[in-house]
């Protein structure tokens, strides 16, 4: 069984040099100019909050919302951790953009044959046993690549070692059931533009809850509808039959009253 990979991003170590974006653009053959927000040509971007730099990118959720909502299964969660996208399947409904709790997927709005664009966790490199391009390029170790289990342990250790420096939270440990990108920080995450009110169980359970009722609705509903049809139809038949009976009786001997109701 492959170990799930992860990135540990330590916001206290990031100096805002943008090497990650530069390396990412090179590795993914994207236009080189610097970008400050995620876009179809920037899978990662640095946002500054009072001297603290926050790297935005796809979180590679353990149970990704984007994977669950896509009607044609264009997204896949791979064993190694990356959530990858197959443009050949995509029909462009953009449910993934609507549903991603981290607001990650970007659309090629200006294209007439658009694709979803987002960080792919350097899936090809991972398959060859290489770390991601961004972590390799990071000069300070702010972005560190490794196995998720190890990195999570390390994150908790860093916090425990310097409780005065770090706030006691690893972002990504529990958010929507856990993600492959983990953050530690000295500033509360809500001040850094993170979604901090996310639930700790995966979002796909919410829709699955409804979807899993379908077989029940269909079978119970089907039986019910057929039952109602049978009863109302039968009633009608009985009524018609009785009417006919009454008629013949009346015409034969005039004792319609004997029939009762």
């Amino acid at each position: 069984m492959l170990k799930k990979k992860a990135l540990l991003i330590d916001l206290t170590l990031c100096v805002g040099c943008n090497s990650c974006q530069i390396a990412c653009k090179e590795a993914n053959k994207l236009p080189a100019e610097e970008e400050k927000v995620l876009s179809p040509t920037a899978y990662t971007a640095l946002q500054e909050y009072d001297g603290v730099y926050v790297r935005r990118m796809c979180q590679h959720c353990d149970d990704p919302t984007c994977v669950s909502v896509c009607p044609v299964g264009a997204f896949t969660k791979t064993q190694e951790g990356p959530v990858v996208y197959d443009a050949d399947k995509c029909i462009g409904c953009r449910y993934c953009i609507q549903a991603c709790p981290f607001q990650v997927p970007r659309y090629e709005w200006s294209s007439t044959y658009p694709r979803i664009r987002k960080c792919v966790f350097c899936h090809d490199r991972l398959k060859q046993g290489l770390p991601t391009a961004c972590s390799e390029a990071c000069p300070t170790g702010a972005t560190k690549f490794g196995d998720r289990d190890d990195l999570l342990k390390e994150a908790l250790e860093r916090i425990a070692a310097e409780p005065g420096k770090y706030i006691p939270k690893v972002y990504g440990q529990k958010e929507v059931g856990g993600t492959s990108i983990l953050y530690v920080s000295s500033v509360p995450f809500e001040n850094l533009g993170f979604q901090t009110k996310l639930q700790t169980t995966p979002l796909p359970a919410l829709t699955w809850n409804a979807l899993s009722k379908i077989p029940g609705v269909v079978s119970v509903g089907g039986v019910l509808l057929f039952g109602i049809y049978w009863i109302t139809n039968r009633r009608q038949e009985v009524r018609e039959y009785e009417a006919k009976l009454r008629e013949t009786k009346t015409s034969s001997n005039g004792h319609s009253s004997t029939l009762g109701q």
Partner: protein
Amino acid sequence: MKKFLSTFGFWKIVAVVFITAGMYSAYVRFAYGLGASTHLSDQFPWGIWIGFDILCGVGLAAGGFTVAAIVHIFNLKRFEPIIRPTILTAFLGYILVIVGLMFDLGRPLQVWHAIIMWNPRSVMFEVAWCVMLYTTVLALEFSPVVLEKFKMTKTIKVLKRISIPLIITGVLLSTLHQSSLGSMYLIVPEKLYPLWYSAYLPIFFYVSAIAAGCAMVIFESFLSSRAFNRGIEMHLLNEIARVCVVMLAVYAMMKFVDLKDRDALSLLFVPRFETYMYWLEIIVGVIIPLVLLSQEKIRQNPNGLFINAVLVVLGFIINRMNITITGLEAWAGTSYFPSLIEFSITMAIITVGFIAFYYIAKFFPVFTFEEHHESKVPAHAGVVWQQDIEKVSKVIV
């Protein structure tokens, strides 16, 4: 006659304008892409095409399965006169939903992927299948009308034999995807404003669609009675209005209990845009029609019936637009208003729908039970805007 011709000319021009604008917009949409033609963005990936064309289109066509169930499953045969126009409305409605979807999808030519590339965990996948299957069911339900015209009695007999399973399938499919349109929003608990986000969204969507579907049956009966100069089945519409009232009452109660259970009642009094829009949808689409339509006197009055049906439909539309747009704006941190192109495509689609209904009803035996029902609506009845609608129906329709 002269007057008729001049109004005829006017509405014809309006129709031509809408369709021409729509065609130009369609060109821009497909030649330059969604970015150039719409106000959609990564913050607001779904706009009026999803909110109106699809959510409202499907919901307002709910009269189709409701009336089919009333007539064939509950065996209330007296409703037969309205079943054909209702099925036709639903069928056209779904066709237009699919057309709308073609504009909205980024890669419309790949839409068939949903047939072979499955993802049963996706609500969208389920909706896609249900809409496909139900459109087929509607086509089959309506086909006897066409076959009758061409006197293909044998085929009609075959269809008659499968009609009950067909109608049951239709009701089930409708139940599934009407509610699933609500389930689609279950996945955005943090994004959708809490006045609207609820675990019961699927049920709210279902119940409100039945209410709005009934209102549409009334609305459309009035329009076609004027367009085709035929009688109106007041006693039937009265009963349909009663179904509508019951549904609205159930809906209102569930909404209230849900807010209470979620401790969200206080949100009703927070002075912000979402609150106002919420009240608007509830007052227009639920409270007023609930109070008025529960009175026999108003249900017997053609104008009362018509105006309330319009209110229910309006409230329904506001509700769906609130969920797709208003309720998501705060989270997205940006507002959305449809571009002229988005708007004109929607208008063109509606116009085409009206025209299609008019011609199909004209050339096929859609209205079969004619004059022996009830009186005609007095010609002078109604406020000015109502006469406008009358003209629309008469002509563009």
